[in-house]
């Protein structure tokens, strides 16, 4: 089981994501934005940070990097893809996920241990959770305010594509949405950082481990 983590210029949490993958028991494979190869990984993580300095819009320039063409093709064929924070913004820019992120309401950079509710376990990254389960995951961003048109929001709600909701909305996100998935359930994006919640020494919870356990159990069951 190999999980790739893409490094873009300006990625910050790629090494934390690689470490979290290793701790989960999978093989961590560093991937590079400038190469269109994703080796032979079974799943891909787009990490947090400020790719290309967040110039233009968060994720807007990274979306056209060589690796993303391959990631988009793979995602459309069903490969598990997780976008964390900047990775979520990138997935929205790539139109693999609906909506977009704007500045936090109140203009504050938010950095908290955020309570979330798991709204669906019907994705490859959340199948080891329980629906309705409340978890704590680190949240840290200035542009995490999820917005989409009323029609898109309705479709996300009706199709059970809202994966996580904030308990106590920290940034003005529509419908308290913290994370969503695509129709197929293989692409998930969320603003909180599960890779920061995998070790007792540094984490307020170990709830991030379930993300990695989920994708490992999904891929193992499929093989």
């Amino acid at each position, binding site marked *: 089981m190999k999980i790739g983590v893409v490094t873009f210029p300006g990625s910050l949490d790629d090494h934390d994501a690689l470490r979290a993958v290793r701790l989960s028991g999978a093989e961590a494979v560093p991937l590079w934005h400038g190469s269109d190869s994703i080796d032979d990984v079974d799943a891909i993580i787009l990490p947090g940070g400020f790719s290309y300095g967040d110039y233009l819009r968060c994720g*807007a320039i990274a979306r056209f990097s060589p690796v993303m063409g391959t990631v988009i093709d793979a995602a459309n064929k069903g490969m598990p893809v997780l976008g964390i924070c900047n990775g979520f913004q990138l997935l*929205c820019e790539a139109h693999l996920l609906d*909506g977009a992120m*704007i500045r936090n*309401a*109140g*203009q504050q950079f938010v950095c908290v241990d955020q309570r979330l509710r798991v709204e669906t376990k019907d994705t490859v990254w959340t199948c080891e959770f329980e629906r309705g389960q409340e978890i704590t995951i680190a949240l840290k961003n200035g542009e995490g305010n999820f*917005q989409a*048109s009323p029609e898109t929001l309705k479709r996300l709600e009706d199709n059970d594509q809202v994966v996580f909701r904030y308990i106590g909305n920290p940034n003005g996100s529509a419908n308290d949405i913290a994370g969503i998935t695509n129709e197929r359930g293989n692409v998930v994006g969320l603003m909180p950082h599960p890779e920061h919640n995998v070790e007792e020494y540094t984490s307020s919870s170990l709830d991030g481990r379930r993300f990695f356990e989920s994708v490992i159990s999904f891929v193992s069951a499929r093989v």
Partner: protein
Amino acid sequence: MSRVVVNVMPKPEILDPQGKAVTGALQRLGFHGLSVRQGKRFEIEVDGEVTDEVLAEIRDAAEKLLANTVIESFEVVAE
């Protein structure tokens, strides 16, 4: 050299936290009754004349990269 300008604005129905903050700051400075929405202006230098093909290409560029049409609208203006 000719210039084409692309103006990008947050869509009216999308909250504009930056514009809201600027509006608040103006009020505190004594500028009352001014409501601000903040966008982006791209000045694009073009070799030769601004033909319909050039404008169409810039419109394509705006759609693809300069604006995120999920949350933003844009206009292309030849100067």
